[in-house]
């Protein structure tokens, strides 16, 4: 790969365009209390009329010091905290953390646990994308898809609730496997859900994909090239919509994704519409993965042999997974004690958010909203 700095130089981040005539530049403070910044993101916009000359994100309104907390908790105790980062994809967070510690401990979860993990994580990807779709459409002005997606997301949350008692911050996985065996009828319910959900994706697409206004609002909006994505470290659907076929599930297979057959949907133009299409296709792929996983669900133990008191050998490990929003990485340094010496999270939302300025420059205010929506950020994860 080339030097990332060289490609950043052509992004032209420093020189904004001159305002039209001598009209005053308008500085607008969008957020932290704003209906469309998806939480407490604050964006300082510099506008020429409606045109964005530049913007700056101010973050940290939801900072809870998750990483610092990790240094004062044992490995097991820290597990529930990671659910509170990306709270709409809590299961993925848990998966990433558990796998990282397992890597540190050199244990591997048994096959049945791996399968259940994949099922729950992919369900979580669908739930996360549903939430994204609803709120993104709401930002662009279509209020109805929100209710459709929330209605169907409810079915996933019901499965979670039945499995582990929680709906949002599930704390579904344990280091070394699973805490709970699946409940009776779990497989059937997941299958029922897939049956139920397949036509629903078509329903969402029917509302939006060929809707003229939707296409006009999203085509050629917030374009980012694959090169810029790589330079900025943008991952996930945003990267893939720019034409880069990079999915950690295929590139660095974790859990047991290599056993499943699925495609990586990619886009061409890297605009908001392509990102929409990529995420819609990803939901279909997730359905495919879950179908395979639930059909081949093996019998067996759900917990590997893990010591009661975890004391990993001193050392460090970085492990990343493909969360719904992009590469979610955990970097854990162990000093041999029961608590991590340092936990560092590489959150996809935080990194993806850095592309906002590049994607919005020269566009209109309404596009900023569309781009914030399409980046699919969760402020809990950005601020941690």
């Amino acid at each position, binding site marked *: 790969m080339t030097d990332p700095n060289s490609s950043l130089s052509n992004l032209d981040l420093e020189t904004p365009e001159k305002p039209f005539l001598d009209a005053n530049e308008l500085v607008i403070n969008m957020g932290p209390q704003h209906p469309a910044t998806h939480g407490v993101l604050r964006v300082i916009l510099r506008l020429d009329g*409606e045109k964005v000359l530049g913007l700056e994100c101010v973050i940290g309104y939801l900072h809870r010091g998750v990483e610092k907390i990790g240094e004062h908790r044992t490995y097991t105790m820290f597990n529930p905290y990671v659910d509170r980062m990306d709270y709409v994809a809590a299961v993925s967070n848990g998966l990433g953390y558990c796998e990282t510690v397992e890597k540190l401990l050199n244990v591997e979860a048994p096959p049945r646990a791996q399968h259940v993990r994949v099922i729950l994580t992919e369900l979580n990807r669908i739930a996360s994308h549903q939430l994204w779709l609803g709120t993104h459409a709401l*930002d662009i*002005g279509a209020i109805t898809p929100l209710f459709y997606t929330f209605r169907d997301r409810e079915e996933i949350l019901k499965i979670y609730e039945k499995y582990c008692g929680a709906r949002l911050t599930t704390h579904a996985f344990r280091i070394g496997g699973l805490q709970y065996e699946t409940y009776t009828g779990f497989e059937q319910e997941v299958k029922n859900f897939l049956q139920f959900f397949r036509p629903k994706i078509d329903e969402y697409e029917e509302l939006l994909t060929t809707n003229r*206004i*939707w296409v006009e*609002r999203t085509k050629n909006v917030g374009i980012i090239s694959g090169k810029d994505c790589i330079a900025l470290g943008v991952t996930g659907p945003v990267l893939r919509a720019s034409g880069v076929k990079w999915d950690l599930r295929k590139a660095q297979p974790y859990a047991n994704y290599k056993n499943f057959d699925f495609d990586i949907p990619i886009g061409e133009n890297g605009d908001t519409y392509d990102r929409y299409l990529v995420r819609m296709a990803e939901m279909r792929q997730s359905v495919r993965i879950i179908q395979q996983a639930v059909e081949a669900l093996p019998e067996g133990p759900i917990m590997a042999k893990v010591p009661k008191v975890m004391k990993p050998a001193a050392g460090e490990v970085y492990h990343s997974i493909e969360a719904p929003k992009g590469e979610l990485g955990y970097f854990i340094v162990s000093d041999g004690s029961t608590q991590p010496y340092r936990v560092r999270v590489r959150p996809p939302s935080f990194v993806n958010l850095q592309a906002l300025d590049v994607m919005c420059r020269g566009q209109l*205010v*309404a596009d900023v909203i569309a781009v914030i929506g399409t980046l699919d950020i969760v402020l809990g994860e950005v601020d941690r």
Partner: protein
Amino acid sequence: MRAIIQYIQSYLGSDQTPGAAGNMFWALVYIMVVFAGLSVAVIAMNWLERKILAHMQVRLGPMRVGPHGLLQPIADAIKLLLKEDIMPSEADGFVFWMAPFIVVLAAFTVFVVVPFGPTHAITDMNIGILFMLGVSSLSVLGIVMAGWASNSHYPLIGALRSSAQMVSYEVAMGLAVVSAILMTSLNAEGTGTLSMIGIVQAQQAQGEWFIFKFFPLGLIAFFIFAVAMVAETNRAPFDLAEAESELTAGFHTEYSGFRWSLFFLAEYSAMIAVSSIAVTLWLGGWLRPFPNFLSGATWDRAFSLFPGVVFLLFAAMCFYNAVRMPKHPLFRIQTIGLAGFGVVLGLIGLVLFVPAVSLRVQDIFWFSAKIAGFMYLYIWYRGTFPRYRFDQLMQMGWKVLLPLGLGVLILTATVALLQQRIWHP
């Protein structure tokens, strides 16, 4: 005393509007009736919009206050009236104070010329349609004032958007209106009219609603107007001036309580006003449907029963839902209330069957029913469409609707001339 009674009675036999007859008393009565009816319509619209939108979005909508949330708008109104009236400290006091009143004034004044029937209008002006367009275009001033006086960025952007939007769509709207007015001149004298009542009478005389006239020219003009009127009233998908996801609430971000509710009132009555223009110009105003296929006294009589039947249907719906109410002591009041509401609607329906009443009321009924169709469309748009972006909105106004309107106008004029000179000289 007798003179007064005579003055009041003198109007009753006339076939003119009270304004045209110069009868102050009846004009005042009409103003009061229209004002009250409009307020009720806005309240009903509030409830209907929330209910219909909710059912489109697989939810129930208001259910708690009154049976099926029927009293929700009233509860909302009381809440808004009791709320603190906040004015930003840096706001321009006088302009901030004036803005909602201008919007409401403009929205209500246009109803002076709306013809609910051949005699059911406050007055008939010979520049009726011009008056409606002119006064409704004044409401943009209120919006601009509100946005500017708030001394805040979001309202300012909202005001800028809305002023640009309304001025641009007025052009296309005007062209569509002119092509309809051209059609009124297709009579023996060759003179058209701008009077709202005259326009409907022209459609009656020509035996054709203007939407079907010179097919598809009338239809295209109607389409242009139907798009432009949504943009004029700042409703979805053209609700950029108050786009809540972009500008929080646009021009009325800083308004609260009573003043905010005035904007709300104005928005809905403006919707009714522009719909009534569309109904008058293209959909035959108060005329009943199918006057040509189903003509004759029998059919007239049958169609005059419609208002009563509709009210009886509403009453039946109320009773049906009252029966379906949960059988629980806590729901008893609601059930009784719903049944009582049904009784009231049913009684109104029965009164409407009296021939003398139904003959005078059916005009109002058909006019209102057509407007209700538009209101449903407004709600439907809101449930279905994403929001346009500002530049796309402008593009649509100037590059699509304006040339289309000009083309339709020229074609209409050409066809009308040909018809008068060549086909039917």
